[in-house]
C-alpha cells in the first residue's frame, strides 16, 4: 500500500491551548489508484499532504500514523521520511513556476535531483533527465534542457515539476492543485499526463483540488474534506451518483456545468480552526441540521446501502449529479438597436522591455488585434479565452485604462476617455469594473462602509446622512448585513468582499458593468452566489454586462452572446446556445472539450471497470 494513514491529527501548539487543524483522518491509497481530496479552501487538504510528507513546521504536532510503502514515517520514525522523500513519495504543487529554482536551468535541476536520488554519475543522470523530459511530453527536450523556468510556459513548468517528482521513481505522488493555475486546455493535458503515468508506473496518487469537475475526471476515489475531517468517502461513481452528505451535495450542486442552469451555493464559510463548533463542523451551514448535530460529532460510518462512508446524522436522499438540474431557459433579451459599447477594429500594443525610460529601447507586442465587438443596452456578453488571449486588455480598452493603438472604442457614441482625464469622471458614472480579486481591489486599511461610500464622496452625491443611507441600501442590494460596513476587508470572506466590490461599483448606478473574472479567486461554493447576484441585478436594473472569464461553465445561464478570443483576435462571436451546441471555430471546440464536467466521466469509468475485472 503506497499510503496508509490512520487516525492522523495535526494540532498547532500555541498559548491558550491547542488548535486542531486535522482530526482523525483515515485514508488508504492503493497502488495504481488516484484518490481525490476535495473541499473548500481551509478544509485541510494541503495540510494533509504536507503532514504525510513530514513537511509541516516544527511547532505543529502530528498524531496518528502515516505509513508510506509500509514504512511508518510519523512519531519516532520521523527521520525516515527525510530519506523517503523523493524516492518513496514525491509532491507537485500548484504554482510550478514558483516551485522551480529560477536561476538554475531545467536540466541542471533535474540532473542534481537524479544524482541525489539515484546515486548515478552526471553523464548517466543527463540521459535519465532527457528521458524524463520526453516522458512527460516536453517538446524539444534538448533545447529545454538548457533553458530556465521563466522561458517555459506554465503548463511546461508543471511538466518539468512532474519530471522532477518522477526522478526518484516514487510509488506515491501527492498532487496539490497541480492544474489550478493553468488554462483549461493545458489542464486537460496535465490531467491526461498524470493518468497516463499512473497507468505506466502503477503509483498511487493523492490528488487535491477544489474543483469537483477535475476530481471527477481523474480520480478513482473521492474523499470530501470539511474543517479538517473527511466527511464523505467512496468510489468516484458512488459519490457523484449517490452522495448523501449535505456538504458533498452542496459542492456537487455548486459545480457549474456546460448545460447551464441555476448555480447553487453553500451559505456561510468554512470555520477557522479556532472557531470550529462542538459537534459537526458543518452544522451551522447545513440545511438538514438536527439538534444533536451541534452536540454529537458524527463518526465516519459505512453507508448501509452503498459503498461510501459518511459522517452525518441526517444524510440526505442521494441526488445524482448529472440530472440535478434541468437546463434552464434563459430569458432572451431583444437586441437593442444601438450599441452601448462598440469596439471597431480596435487594437492595443504594449511596449516590452522598457517602462518609458529614456535610457533603453523597447519592442511592441500586440495584445489585442483589430477586434470588432458590440454590446447593446441591457445585453450581457461573455468574453472567453485563455490567459494571454487578450481578454483583460479588452476590458482595459473599454474602461479607458489603455488607449487603442488602432481603431475606435466607443461608449454611447463617444470615444472612451482615458482614466484621469476630466471627461473620465463623467464616464465613470456609466461604466464600472468588478475585478478578479476582491482582496486586491479593496483598500486593506479602510472600512468597508467607507469604501462603498467613496464613489459618492468623489462625485459629491448627497449629504453625509444621505450617503450613509445609500451605503446601507447598497449593502442590502447585494445581500449583506449593515454591520459589515464597520469591518475591514480582511474580516470578511472572499464571497462577501466580492459583493462589497459589486456594491461599490453599483453606487453610481452605472449602465455597464465590466466583470473581469469576478469568481476565479473565490471558492466554488460561493461562485454561484456572485453569478446569481449579477443575474438578479441584470433583471432589476437593466444593467449591461461584459463578462470576462476563462471558465465556460459559469456563463451559460448568464450571458446572451459569447465572444471567443484567441491570440488577440475574436475567433467566434455568436449567441450563447449556438456557441455551446454548434461551435464553428476549431479553437472553440477544443475549449469546450477541455472543460472538466461532472457529466463527462465516461473514460475513467471504463478504466476503473477494467481494473476491477
Amino acid at each position: 500500500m503506497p499510503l496508509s494513514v490512520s487516525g492522523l491529527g495535526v494540532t498547532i501548539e500555541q498559548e491558550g491551548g491547542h488548535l486542531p487543524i486535522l482530526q482523525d483522518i483515515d485514508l488508504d491509497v492503493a497502488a495504481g489508484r488516484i484518490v481525490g481530496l476535495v473541499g473548500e479552501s481551509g478544509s485541510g487538504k494541503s495540510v494533509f499532504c504536507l503532514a504525510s510528507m513530514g513537511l509541516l513546521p516544527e511547532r505543529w504536532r502530528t498524531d496518528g500514523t502515516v505509513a508510506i510503502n509500509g514504512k511508518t514515517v510519523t512519531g519516532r520514525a520521523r527521520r525516515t521520511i527525510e530519506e523517503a522523500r523523493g524516492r518513496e513519495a514525491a509532491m507537485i504543487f500548484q504554482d510550478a513556476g514558483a516551485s522551480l529554482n529560477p536561476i538554475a536551468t531545467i536540466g541542471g535541476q533535474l540532473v542534481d535531483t537524479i544524482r541525489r536520488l539515484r546515486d548515478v554519475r552526471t553523464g548517466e543522470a543527463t540521459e535519465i533527465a532527457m528521458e524524463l523530459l520526453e516522458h512527460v511530453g516536453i517538446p524539444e527536450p534538448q533545447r529545454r534542457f538548457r533553458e530556465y523556468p521563466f522561458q517555459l510556459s506554465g503548463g511546461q513548468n508543471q511538466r518539468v515539476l512532474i519530471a522532477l517528482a518522477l526522478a526518484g521513481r516514487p510509488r506515491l505522488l501527492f498532487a496539490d492543485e497541480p492544474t489550478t493555475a493553468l488554462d483549461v486546455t493545458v489542464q486537460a493535458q496535465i490531467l491526461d499526463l498524470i493518468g497516463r503515468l499512473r497507468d505506466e508506473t502503477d503509483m498511487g496518487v493523492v490528488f487535491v483540488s477544489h474543483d469537483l469537475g477535475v476530481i471527477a475526471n481523474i480520480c478513482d476515489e473521492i474523499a470530501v474534506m470539511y474543517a479538517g475531517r473527511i466527511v464523505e468517502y467512496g468510489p468516484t461513481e458512488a459519490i457523484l451518483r449517490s452522495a448523501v452528505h449535505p456538504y458533498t451535495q452542496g459542492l456537487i450542486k455548486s459545480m457549474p456545468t456546460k448545460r447551464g442552469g441555476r448555480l447553487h451555493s453553500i451559505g456561510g464559510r468554512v470555520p477557522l480552526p479556532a472557531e470550529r463548533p462542538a459537534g459537526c463542523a458543518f452544522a451551522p451551514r447545513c440545511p438538514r441540521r438536527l439538534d444533536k448535530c451541534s452536540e454529537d460529532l458524527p463518526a465516519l460510518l459505512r453507508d448501509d446501502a452503498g459503498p461510501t462512508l459518511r459522517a452525518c446524522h441526517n444524510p440526505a436522499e442521494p441526488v445524482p449529479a448529472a440530472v440535478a438540474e434541468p437546463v434552464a431557459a434563459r430569458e432572451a433579451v431583444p437586441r437593442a438597436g444601438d450599441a452601448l459599447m462598440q469596439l471597431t477594429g480596435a487594437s492595443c500594443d504594449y511596449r516590452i522591455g522598457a517602462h518609458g525610460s529614456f535610457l533603453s529601447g523597447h519592442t511592441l507586442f500586440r495584445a489585442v488585434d483589430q477586434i470588432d465587438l458590440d454590446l447593446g443596452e441591457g445585453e450581457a456578453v461573455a468574453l472567453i479565452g485563455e490567459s494571454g488571449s487578450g481578454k483583460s486588455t479588452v476590458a482595459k480598452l473599454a474602461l479607458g485604462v489603455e488607449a487603442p493603438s488602432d481603431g475606435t472604442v466607443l461608449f454611447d457614441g463617444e470615444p472612451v476617455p482615458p482614466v484621469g482625464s476630466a471627461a473620465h469622471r463623467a464616464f465613470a458614472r456609466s461604466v464600472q469594473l468588478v475585478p478578479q480579486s476582491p482582496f486586491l481591489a479593496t483598500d486593506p486599511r479602510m472600512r468597508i462602509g467607507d469604501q462603498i461610500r467613496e464613489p459618492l464622496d468623489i462625485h459629491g452625491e448627497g449629504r453625509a446622512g444621505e450617503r450613509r443611507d445609500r451605503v446601507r441600501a447598497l449593502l442590502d442590494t447585494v445581500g449583506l448585513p449593515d454591520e459589515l460596513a464597520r469591518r475591514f476587508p480582511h474580516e470578511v470572506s472572499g464571497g462577501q468582499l466580492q459583493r462589497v466590490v459589486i456594491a461599490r461599483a453599483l453606487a453610481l448606478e452605472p449602465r455597464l458593468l465590466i466583470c473581469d473574472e469576478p469568481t476565479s479567486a473565490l471558492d466554488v461554493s460561493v461562485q454561484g452566489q456572485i453569478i446569481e447576484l449579477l443575474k438578479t441585478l441584470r433583471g432589476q436594473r437593466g444593467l449591461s454586462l461584459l463578462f470576462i472569464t476563462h471558465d465556460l461553465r459559469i456563463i451559460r445561464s448568464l450571458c446572451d452572446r459569447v465572444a471567443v478570443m484567441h491570440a488577440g483576435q475574436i475567433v467566434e462571436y455568436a449567441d450563447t446556445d449556438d456557441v455551446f451546441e454548434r461551435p464553428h471555430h476549431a479553437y472553440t471546440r477544443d475549449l469546450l472539450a477541455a472543460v472538466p464536467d461532472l457529466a463527462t466521466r465516461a473514460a475513467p469509468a471504463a478504466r476503473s471497470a477494467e481494473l476491477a475485472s
Partner: protein
Amino acid sequence: MSDATAPAGRGPLATLLASAAKSPLVLLALIWLLFILIVAIFAPWVAPMDYQEIDLLARLAPPSWSARGFHLLGTDHLGRDLASRLVMAVQLSMLVAIFGTVIGAIIGVTIGFVAARFRGWVDDLVMVFVDFQASMPFVIIALAVLAVTGTGNMLLFILLIGFQGWEKYARITRGMTLSAVNHGYALSVRLLGGGTLRVYLRHILPNIFAGLIVQMSINFPETVILETSMSFLGVGIQPPNASLGNLLSYGRDYLLNAWWIAVAPGVVIFLTTLSMSIVGDWLRDELDPVTRRSA
C-alpha cells in the same frame, strides 16, 4: 486570510504593547525613551537651576550634593550646573531630532510619490539624485551649506538636519507605492473617478505608513547623531544654548581633569540612540506580517 485570526476586540496598540512586555530589552528601551521625552517636554521645570547661571567660584566642580553646592553632575569651566545644562540640551536636541525626522519624512515621501506617479524621466532623475545622496556623507553637504549660510540660524539648522535621510524615505516610498499601485485598489479608485491626490493620500499613504514608521525610527538616531556631530564640530547649536553635541565638545577639552563634563551627555546620546534602534528593530518585526507570523 489568516489575518482574521488576530484577537478580536484588541486594538493594534494594545497588541503592540502586549508584545513589548514580552521582551525586557524592548521594555527598557521604551521606558528610557519615555523618560527622555518627559524630561525634554518639562525641561525648564525639571532643571534644578538656571542653566546659564555662571558661578566662577565653583568652576569644574565634581558631582556633589553637599551644602556647598548642589551639582548632581558637577559644573563646567564657567561654573554652570551641568545637570541643568544636560536637561536643557536634551530638550533642544530632541526638538531638532523630532522636527528633523518629520521634515525628512515629509520631503522624502513627497519626492518618492512624485517619482512613482510620473515614472519615466522624472523617476530616473529622482533616482539619480537619490543615488548621489546615498554615496555622499551628509555631514559634508551640511558643512558646505553652513559654510555658505553661516551658523546660528536655528530654523535653517533644523531644516538642514531634516534633509538628512530624505533619500531613504524617497526610495522606500517609491518602491512601496509602485507595488501598492499594482495592488488594484488604486486602479479601482481611479476607475471610480477619484483623482491622484485621493489615491495617494487617502489610500496609498495609510497602506505604506507602517513601513514609514519603521524608517522614521531608524532615521531618528541618525538625526540625533548628526545634530550632535554638527554641534560637536561647532557649526550646529551655538552657545549659550546647550545641546548634547556642544556639551560633549566642551567636555573634550577637560577630559583629563573634569571627566564628568563629557561622560553625562555621552551616556545620554548613547542610551537614546541605542534605545531608538532597539525600538525600531522591534517595530519593524512587529509591523511586518511576514516576520511576525514566523516568529
